[in-house]
């Protein structure tokens, strides 16, 4: 078992280095922080809310991540296939699942770093008012889980094609679907002709439904289970895709 994690650790290290050795990481971080700041202060009504919270920041994240996370994840497997390095990686003494988990963890860690770098917003709120930092912490946990879920889906679409653009678009569409089934303007519309229990059942599959709990400071194991199982499912599907491609 220790060997399993050693191999995964080596892959994580290499992947993280790959982000930071190319301009990708810096471009991503700068754009994420600029957009997050812009949405929070310009659109989120950060000051107009008159409350010391990060709601303005967290409310926009599902939409911001919708594009940024697939952008960070689209290269994961399609790049390996395009360069042919997948043949190197998978003929080294690792199981497929280790390679998949290693690459996923590295990217997730990178996204978490991006989230952590948004700390000036937390500082601002604390300077200006007296926020509930417990709610902020739980908000960040939710945001990290949301990023992981989008990322796992991007991982899966990235395994499907060697074309990064296709991987990106597929991931955006799938993630958007996961948002929309619980997006209240849409569910309200749906509720006009479908029975309420159906609308509610469908909304249970939405990332928003589960993300909102965390933003209220409620750490519910069901929400946690939802995010983790979507991630596990998407990574498992990645494994099936990769195995099928090799089987020809």
């Amino acid at each position: 078992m220790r060997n399993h994690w050693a191999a995964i650790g080596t892959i994580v290290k290499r992947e993280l280095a790959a982000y930071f050795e190319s301009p990708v990481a810096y471009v991503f971080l700068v754009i994420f922080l600029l957009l997050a700041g812009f949405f929070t202060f310009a659109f989120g009504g950060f000051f107009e809310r008159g409350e010391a919270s990060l709601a303005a920041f967290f409310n926009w994240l599902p939409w911001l991540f919708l594009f940024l996370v697939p952008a960070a994840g689209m290269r994961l497997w399609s790049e390996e296939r395009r360069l042919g390095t997948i043949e190197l990686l998978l003929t080294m003494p690792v199981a497929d699942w280790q390679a998949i988990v290693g690459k996923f963890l590295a990217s997730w860690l990178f996204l978490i770093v991006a989230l952590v770098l948004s700390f000036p917003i937390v500082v601002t709120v604390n300077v200006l008012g007296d926020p509930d930092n417990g709610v902020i912490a739980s908000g960040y946990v939710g945001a990290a889980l949301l990023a992981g879920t989008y990322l796992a889906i991007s991982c899966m679409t990235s395994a499907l094609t060697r074309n990064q653009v296709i991987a990106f678009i597929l991931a955006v569409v799938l993630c958007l679907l996961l948002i929309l089934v619980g997006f209240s303007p849409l569910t309200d519309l749906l509720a006009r002709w479908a029975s309420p229990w159906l609308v509610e059942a469908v909304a249970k599959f939405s990332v928003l439904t589960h993300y909102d709990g965390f933003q209220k400071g409620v750490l519910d194991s069901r929400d946690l289970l939802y995010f983790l199982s979507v991630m596990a499912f998407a990574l498992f599907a990645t494994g099936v895709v990769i195995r099928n491609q090799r089987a020809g």
Partner: protein
Amino acid sequence: MIRVENLSKSFGPKRAVDGVSFEVGKGEVLGFLGPNGAGKSTTMRMITGFIPPTAGAVSVCGLDVQENPIEVKRRIGYLPEAAPSYTEMSVLSFLKFAAEMRGLRGEERRNAIRRVVGLCHLESVLGQTIDTLSKGFRHRTCLAQALVHDPEVLILDEPTDGLDPNQKHEVRTLIREMGQSKAIIFSTHILEEVEAACTRAIIIDRGRIVANGTPAELKARAPSGKLEDFFRSITRSDVQAEAIA
């Protein structure tokens, strides 16, 4: 060391490899010859466990590839076709990665890297990004990756492709030397290479083995005594193959 039995691979209706069997022992260098698309790379990919066979079995050092993939992969060094590598990495960090994936740490890893850097003449480019290297250096970087754990079995898919004549000569010499203590399979289009480095050669055409023998034996089978003439007499060009199909 390497035992291939009735190995077959189909991609949809196309049979890329069709009932191939052979063995390679320690101290043998097997040259894998054949026209483009004959099934050489597919066979090698099945031996390394990268793709599963449709039928048949491969065992390496007595271990079945399908049953014990990780243990088999530990024992193999593999240079894939076109020598892929993580181009954004430096040569040194790429080799460190390969060594670590092979379970080498600390002093062991340093020694292993020093050894392959010397063997593949990479001293001058260690800190350079692979992206910026010439084809010859890229190729040798990938070869170094295959040798870093000093494997018992080497599978090299066109190890001299894209090298200049001097580099080709060096790689051939290296293969011949390593062949004394390892089991090596390498594929090539260059027939003199077979004579220069192999103890035995297999010619494969449209997925089937059409000849198997020492380079001298194969040469003797052509009236002219030339390996090239023998090769041409038993294989078909892809244009001919197309016409028949």
